């Protein structure tokens, strides 16, 4: 499947969080204070790296097994996380790399800088990756992450969430975000979630319980579709450049 290399639709910066969002205190010193300089898509934006199936290990998308000791399993709620990567034109984004990382069921990350008192799970690494298939589908098996406290205001807790990174076919589509779980009361309380101002945009990051893809007696399923920037059609763009 080939995708044309047309220019990307401009990013809707009002849909994304603003760089400076003082309710999320770390953004205060890490946000550019000047306006972004707008550029038309150049060749370095419309092209991007591709990844081969040969780099993906058999268990890379199975967080239940990819860090577990032989014969052991991580603790927590077993879930399937799946969906499509599509673009704003609703075209599937095939063979693109999707990476995820998350806390364990107690809300603890396997990272030397995470000092939360919930314990590490020796059988859970908390990261995985996969390539979307030819129809843009991805699928992971994992443990539902727990909420965790974080230093911002005196008593802020992150909702259960999974971080994700997606490439697309052009470097200007590069996206890192987080997905939440339907029904979690912490979503509306979270200063990081609330850097997004439009409730419909927050909804777009909320994975839905998907009973149809649940594996009976084994794992529930959650579904989230990830949308990357769409491209203009190049059909009429072969004329000489006039600008």
């Amino acid at each position, binding site marked *: 499947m080939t995708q044309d290399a047309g220019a990307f639709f401009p990013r809707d*910066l009002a849909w*994304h*969080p*603003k*760089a400076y969002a003082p309710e*999320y205190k*770390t*953004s205060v*010193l*890490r*946000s*550019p*204070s000047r306006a*972004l*300089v707008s*550029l038309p*898509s*150049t*060749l*370095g*934006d*419309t*092209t*991007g*790296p*591709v990844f081969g199936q040969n780099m993906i*290990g058999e*268990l*890379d998308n199975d967080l239940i097994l*990819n*860090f577990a000791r032989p014969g052991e399993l991580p603790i927590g709620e077993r879930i399937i996380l799946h969906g499509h990567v599509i673009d*704003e034109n*609703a075209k*599937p984004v095939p063979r693109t790399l999707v990476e995820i*990382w998350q806390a364990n069921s107690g809300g603890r*990350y396997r*990272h*030397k*800088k*995470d000092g939360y008192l919930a314990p590490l799970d020796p059988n859970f*690494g*908390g*990261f995985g*990756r996969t390539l979307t298939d030819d129809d843009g589908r991805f699928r992971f098996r994992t443990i539902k992450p727990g909420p965790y406290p974080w230093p911002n205001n005196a008593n802020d807790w992150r909702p259960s969430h999974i*971080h994700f*990174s997606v490439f697309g076919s052009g470097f*200007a589509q*590069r*996206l*890192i975000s987080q997905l939440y779980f339907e029904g979690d009361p912490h979503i509306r309380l979270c200063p990081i*979630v609330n850097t*997004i101002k439009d409730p*419909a*945009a927050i909804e*777009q*990051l909320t994975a839905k319980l998907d009973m149809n893809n649940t594996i009976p007696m084994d794992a529930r399923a959650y579904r989230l*579709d990830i*949308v990357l*920037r769409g491209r203009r059609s190049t059909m009429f763009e072969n004329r000489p450049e006039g*600008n």
Partner: protein
Amino acid sequence: MVPFPGNLKESPSQTAGPYVHIGCTPNAVGIGGPYGEDAGARLVNDKTKGDRISITGRVIDGANAPLRDAMIEIWQADADGLFNSPLEKRGAADTNFRGWGRQAADGESGQFRFETVMPGQVPFAADRMQAPHAQFWIVARGINLGLHTRMYFPDEADANAADPVLQRIEPRWRVATLIASGARPNYTFDIRLQGENETVFFDV
């Protein structure tokens, strides 16, 4: 095909958070696990064409402190100005050059380092050429939407002066924030998120 309506909105961004390395560079931060090598760890091998260069730098916040939890990606053309991408229609890029690299800032010093090659020139819109450059993308805790910028080379003054992207930048003194220091083969590029010499970031 997928039954989705058109005119969708891009999924909104959220910060990569302090633990982006778990998912993206687990080997670099000592977690290990199933990946043999972190994606993007190496751009070149011993068959890569072109002049080897290194790019080191830091991402610096508004209090002049380097970020020790940032992740930096670069994307650039090969020595002949071609991208290693199936969407590159001008010719075949060097198959021994990845073009894409990813590094975690060092957890103590905040320094990142890329070993790459001097990129060739790439056209802009019609036949105008851009000066040699590498595109950068920066994510970290506190960065709500990944930041795109570009690094140009201090020893390419003529090409830089004619570069159609650099020519758009106002006020003109801000162009200097996109030009590395050092000289071939070792360049330094510090990215300042805020303050007097805030780096130019792009909406691409």
